[in-house]
């Protein structure tokens, strides 16, 4: 099966996962996403966007599809196999009481590369939920497993509550970036690493509008920014390892192609979501210029191109 990256969306009941997924399905900017959900009934897609129903699958006009996991993950994945060539990304909804890390393991069973684990939380309810006698452990475990936390419904919390929430989250999930949202509106670039206006982040493309400077997204209230770093000489692995650890909680994602000193003829893909990062061998450079180019997405005004550049030091 084609190697499709998958993202797990977890979080307790009522956090806004379903709203997020509904929003995502209809705003993928050309990215073809297969979504596996637990509760088919709550997926709320505009009838005009539906191309057809095929048993447990809804096919959308935008090339996306939505499948019900029901009880059987294995069957849901096997249905995707046949469609793999027509898809770019898989999103799997973890149930409210599940460990998203376990769901990630299921995906890895099928040799699908894990993009990241996102956990959505209700800013108003989450502290109470974390202390609940029955589900407190579950909620805390979900945070511990998250690569990114989406703190949703921030419009329902006061400024003081938000401050104390952020402090609390740094205690229970140290090092994990937290993105604030209202009504589960999270930019696609943050959710799946794709940039709005493009099917996927392609750091080799010369058509990117943000060549070597930052690009703030004005239309998002809790906006994000993206920065690009480039190097024309090969890097050694320790440099990247240091960079990954140094990025910090304000950086949500980083992705790009890397030229390594110890294997200069082969292009490597660097991918980071929160604190989770990987460096995987890709195709040979061939005639393409051997240049490292990374796109970094993080909280608006959290940093600048020069500071980031300094982190990628030899």
């Amino acid at each position: 099966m084609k190697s499709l990256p998958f993202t797990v969306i977890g979080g307790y009941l009522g956090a806004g996962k379903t709203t997020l997924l509904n929003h995502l399905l209809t705003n993928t900017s050309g990215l073809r996403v297969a979504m596996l959900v637990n509760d088919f009934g709550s997926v709320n897609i505009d009838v005009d966007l539906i191309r057809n129903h095929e048993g447990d699958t809804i096919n959308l006009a935008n090339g996306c599809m939505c499948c019900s996991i029901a009880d059987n993950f294995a069957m849901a994945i096997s249905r995707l196999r046949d469609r793999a060539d027509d898809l770019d990304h898989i999103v799997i909804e973890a149930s409210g009481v599940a460990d998203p890390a376990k769901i990630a393991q299921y995906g890895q069973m099928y040799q699908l590369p894990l993009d990241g684990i996102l956990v959505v939380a209700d800013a108003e309810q989450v502290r109470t939920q974390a202390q609940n006698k029955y589900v407190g452990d579950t909620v805390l475990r979900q945070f511990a497993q998250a690569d990114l936390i989406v703190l949703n419904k921030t419009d329902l919390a006061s400024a003081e509550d938000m401050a104390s929430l952020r402090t609390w989250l740094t205690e229970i999930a140290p090092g994990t970036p937290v993105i604030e949202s209202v009504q589960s509106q999270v930019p696609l670039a943050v959710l799946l690493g794709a940039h709005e206006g493009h099917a996927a982040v392609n750091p080799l493309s010369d058509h990117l509008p943000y060549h070597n400077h930052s690009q703030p997204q004005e239309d998002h209230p809790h906006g994000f920014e993206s920065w690009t770093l480039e190097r024309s000489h090969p890097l050694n692995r320790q440099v990247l390892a240091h960079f990954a650890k140094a990025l910090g909680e304000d950086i949500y994602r980083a992705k790009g192609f890397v030229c390594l000193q110890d294997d200069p003829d082969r292009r490597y893909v660097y991918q980071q979501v929160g604190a989770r990062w990987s460096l995987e061998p890709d195709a040979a450079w061939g005639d393409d210029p051997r240049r490292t180019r990374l796109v970094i997405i993080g909280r608006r005004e959290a940093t600048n191109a020069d500071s980031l550049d300094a982190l990628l030091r030899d």
Partner: protein
Amino acid sequence: MSSNSSTQPKFDKITVFPARKIITMCDAMPTAQAVAVGNGKIISVGTMDSLKPWLERYPHEIDDRFVDKILMPGLIDPHVHPSLPAVTTQFPFIAPDDWLLPTGKFPGATTPEAYVERLKELYAQHTDWDNIPFICWGFHPLWHGEQYRPQLNELFPDKPVILWHRSFHELICNDEALKWFDLTEEEVKRMPETNWEKGHFWENGAQPLVVKLSPCLFDPKRYGKGVETFFAMAHQGGITSCLDMGIGIFGDAVGEINLIRQIADSVNAPCRVVLTPTTVDFLARGLKSSQALEQVEEWSKTNSRRVMLDRHFKLQVDGAIFGGLSQYGFPGYLDGHAGMWMAPPEVLFEFAETFWKAGYQLHAHINGDLSADLFIDIIRRLQEIKPRFGHRATLEHFAFTHEDQSRQMQELGMLVSANPYYHYILSDIFSNEWLGSDRGAQMVRLGSLERLGIPFALHSDCPMAPLSPLTLAWTAVNRVTINGNLNSPEERISLHQALRAITIDAAWILRKENEIGSIRAGKMADFAVLEADPYEVGAEGLKDIPIWGVVFEGEVHPVHGRTDTIKSFID
């Protein structure tokens, strides 16, 4: 006295069954020697002499087949899943414990040598190689030793062989079986919960294998035969009524109801099955509780003599006990792992509230004390929202709870349907691995219920335990584990209480105490026919009492007469 024929009851035929002893389970008349039956019901109970007022008035016949036998009320198993044995009995069994099935006699093997010898014999009998590998259910390494891929390869180099673990959740394959599943070393090594060297797949690791086996397991002919086997097993166990606890768990509730009904009638099964819908099905289909209620009311419209719905509803609360997924309160599991909720408490409450308000009897799958707390909390809240007398909310399985919870349940009018076999099989392992010896020893604390006077029943949840209420009674009364340890003797129950738990108190949990569960005038003529008297035989001999057969609504059904339906599955 003149007879007024317009007020006399009409009977098609009165049959009198004299017996060595009739155990009525009625406190007012605990034993009798004869019972008169007509129109499928009990007309009168007493002695041949005391029945004279009836026998002098009405033509009758004496059926003396039971003259030297013991009659009890038809036994009741209040927690079964016809589909589970329908799947497992498609294969031969070699477990640590004995299994005497309609498909064959499968004595337990408690040493590796015995296991291997038996395995070779059964392997030689498999012929359906075109459709399915040789599969054998019941393996457990604690008794059977290391029987993994290397050992299986040596014993069976040419054909696919799969061992299905006693817990139901693990599979072991030889090389030929791995080929049959199309699994390569590389793939297996990337899967969690697998071990390539041992050919061992457990929990999620086993899932892809089960998916591959499913078309065969659920092939209508094989599966249909499996349901027949379920009824034959119930018959063997002396069971005339049972309460299913989860239709639709394999995805097709209506299909399942129809199949069970069709087979029950076609084999003239001497047993009725009450079916219980469950949250698992509706949540898998993404339905709200109000929609679930609508569907359940619809399904109830086609109730028939043997197969019916009767306003029961089940909440699946925590995870499987064998898989260590029950929810325990502090200090939790010894090894620190977490249990699992099958649904968020809010969702469970929503379903509970909908069905409670509609007057249903709630049941909840509860294996850990934290889950018990949750169910107790739910019932408390529901009583504040809409107080109900006689709600009979039942805690199912009862693997581990605290004494204090027994008292809380009494306060709330809750009942228990327990699986005492969990204590038998798991108490020692749980003491060492998961709960510690204090909690492990006190699993399934039936003694506390008896002391408090809380009605409770015993169930098998077959194949978690054999479909044999007398065996369940034996485990509850003796409380000796499979390894011979007597754990927490204070939680043993009396013989009489155990017999109540498989008859009249089980009927109470089915809400059918007006019709079944004891032998008195007016109830269904459902009897279990035993070759020995449980009170005479005593605690230790209970599970070995041979069952001659049953009487179901006045019809006699000997076990050994059923050769037409007891066909061997071993090809």
